[in-house]
């Protein structure tokens, strides 16, 4: 248990409460050289994670059908059996964060009382956004609002589109609002609360308590000195595993999406070769980014990305029905506020398709990504107060997502309803389910489609680069026992390894089943996150406010 009475090493950065532990950072590390290259890795986390990733890839390649059917069964089974658990847990995280914002502990500063922020608001915000969900906005911004409006019927709100494709006028208003509200629910407070809990736990236990920047540190109040042994090794290995497979599978699936977009816009053939070239390209740019470091690479790319995304948003806003979009934004936000409680109610509902197929799936997905995104957010958030941190991680990204969904989804819904017979969005989302084309189908209905679709493809690719580089930094830090100054060849190794795993799975098959496996890790991680809330609370009690 925590040594609450001890203030440990005096900390002149202002009062904070360093945890007095026997553990020294780097004590389990192996340092040496492989040929001319130096290394400094955690034993056994580095080797066990690396080898088990290879073992799983081989399994997925050798028995693709068995792996496919097992994980294809596992994921929907988990999300439909434990939907109440995912929904309840996510509600707990939101309430926990909101309570902390308004509690006296909100004034605790991450990094000690006199610490000052390392990054400006813009750089900080760009990084947490790009790592957190940039790519998802590109993929789901059009798809989800249209789908929830027309097909999934959240809370039983009926679809305005009849079987024969005609519009049922009396359903339109309610369905439009619900389409946006049901989407915002998946991209608003709940996912960001999930990230915020993990990030806050890591930042608190690293910057204020002096423990290594590694997932295991957040469990010190629960497991005590055991986190430095196998208990902690297992936690860190699981985190590396979820991060690496999460990145590799989305890299592979992302290459397929980018290829689909290139085919749709330019007629580039949709083949494995093109996709492998895309993965190599994305990995190469990510490699340059990690070699330029956190400030010179990752931050710069994130800011460029935010800039291009804002321009695209602005374009769609102006080129689309601007006034209608603003009223969609307001009515979507109002509907979100009104329906939030009903949408997050975990029991006694009949909209299984929406609640189990989408909400529980999303919650499991955000949670399985939370070690990676949370750790990255923690690393760039030193010097913020708990209140500032939670407000910025929770409220501002939520508002940006609302705006994004209102603009992209609003325009798409407008296209579907105003011209159901020729709408490309309707053809690719409602008539045939081709999610990877939904964004391009919406842009097709606006002027300058050739240019904006190209920008869309570039954005998809650059968002993957920013996930890949920040992910490589996170994996490198975890597998170096929390050291952020490990030799450079190590991050080159992880970045390349990630690309290789994606290529092997793309050629050999098994991307889908491994992604299902990653999402399945969301269930155990949900328990882990609930424990983290308690650990944060306990950790904050001993901090000076």
């Amino acid at each position, binding site marked *: 248990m925590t040594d609450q009475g001890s203030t440990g090493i005096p*900390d*002149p950065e202002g009062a904070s409460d360093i945890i007095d532990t026997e553990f020294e950072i780097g*004590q389990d590390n192996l340092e040496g050289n492989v040929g*001319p290259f130096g290394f400094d890795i955690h034993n056994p986390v580095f080797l066990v994670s690396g080898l088990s990733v290879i073992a799983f890839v081989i399994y997925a390649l050798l028995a693709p059908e068995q792996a496919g059917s097992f994980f294809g069964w596992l994921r929907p089974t988990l999300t439909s059996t434990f939907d109440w658990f995912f929904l309840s847990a996510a509600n707990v995280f939101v309430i926990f964060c909101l309570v902390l914002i308004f509690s006296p502990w909100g004034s605790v500063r991450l990094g000690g009382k006199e610490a000052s922020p390392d990054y400006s608001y813009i750089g900080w915000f760009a990084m947490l956004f790009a790592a957190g969900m940039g790519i998802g906005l590109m993929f789901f911004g059009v798809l989800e609002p249209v789908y929830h409006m027309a097909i999934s019927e959240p809370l039983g709100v009926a679809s305005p589109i009849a079987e024969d494709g005609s519009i049922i006028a009396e359903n339109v208003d309610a369905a439009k609002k619900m389409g946006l509200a049901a989407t915002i629910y998946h991209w608003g407070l709940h996912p960001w609360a999930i990230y915020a809990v993990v990030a806050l736990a890591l930042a608190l236990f690293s910057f204020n308590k*002096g*423990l290594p920047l590694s997932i295991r540190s957040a469990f010190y109040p629960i497991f005590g000195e055991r986190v430095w042994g196998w208990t902690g090794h297992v936690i860190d290995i699981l985190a590396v595993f979820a991060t690496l497979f999460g990145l590799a599978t989305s890299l592979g699936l992302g290459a397929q999406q980018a290829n689909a977009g290139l085919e749709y816009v330019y007629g580039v053939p949709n083949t494995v070769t093109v996709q492998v070239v895309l993965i190599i390209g994305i990995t190469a740019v990510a490699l340059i980014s990690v070699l330029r470091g956190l400030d010179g690479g990752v931050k710069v790319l994130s800011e460029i990305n935010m800039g291009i995304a804002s321009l695209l948003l602005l374009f769609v806003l102006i080129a689309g029905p601007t006034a209608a979009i603003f009223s969609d934004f307001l009515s979507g936000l109002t509907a979100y506020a009104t329906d939030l409680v009903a949408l997050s109610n975990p029991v006694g509902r009949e909209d299984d398709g929406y609640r189990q197929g989408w909400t529980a799936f999303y919650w499991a997905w955000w949670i399985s990504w939370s070690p990676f995104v949370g750790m990255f957010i923690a690393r760039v958030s030193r010097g913020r107060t708990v209140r500032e941190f939670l407000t910025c991680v929770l409220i501002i990204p939520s508002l940006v997502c609302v705006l994004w969904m209102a603009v992209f989804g609003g325009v798409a819904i407008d296209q579907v309803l105003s011209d159901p017979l020729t709408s490309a969005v309707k053809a690719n989302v409602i008539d045939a389910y081709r999610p990877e084309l939904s964004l391009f189908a919406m842009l097709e209905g606006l002027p300058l489609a050739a240019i904006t679709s190209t920008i869309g493809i570039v954005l998809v690719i650059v968002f993957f680069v920013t996930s890949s580089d920040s992910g490589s*930094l996170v994996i490198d830090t975890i597998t170096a026992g929390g*050291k952020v100054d490990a030799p450079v060849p190590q991050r080159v190794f992880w970045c390349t390894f990630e690309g290789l795993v994606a290529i092997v799975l793309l050629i050999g098959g098994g991307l889908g089943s491994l992604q299902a496996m990653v999402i399945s890790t969301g269930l155990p991680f949900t328990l882990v996150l609930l424990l983290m809330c308690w650990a944060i609370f306990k950790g904050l009690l001993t901090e000076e406010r």
Partner: protein
Amino acid sequence: MYKKIIVPVDLAHAGKLAKALKTAADLARHYQVPVCYVGVTTETPGSVAHTPKEYAGKLESFAKEQGAANGIEASSHMVVAHDPSIDLDPALLKAIDDVGADLVVMASHVPNVADYLWPSNGGTVAGRSKASVFVVREG
């Protein structure tokens, strides 16, 4: 001939720096100039210290020990880097300017094939700094 000597030190591997530290001390006595020991750390806890301020304290005692043991005027200077694996060279170059040193004495490994990919810190500093640079080959 020189005004101030700067010596980059890695407190986690101070044992490997014996030759560079001795060289710097000998030069300092010869030219009767002060030595500034510069260390680069991170905001995150590391193997040497939990916080930047704790690191600063350790660096300062290290400088005092060196000063007392060698009979030279010694000071310390800490630089905090977000991503020291990458930012070490610019951090050192800035430190040279900040402390106003005109001679750098730094340890470096014997070059190998990896230096074609990642040049040694000694090599980069020598290539970019206005100060004179004495690269000491350790072992």
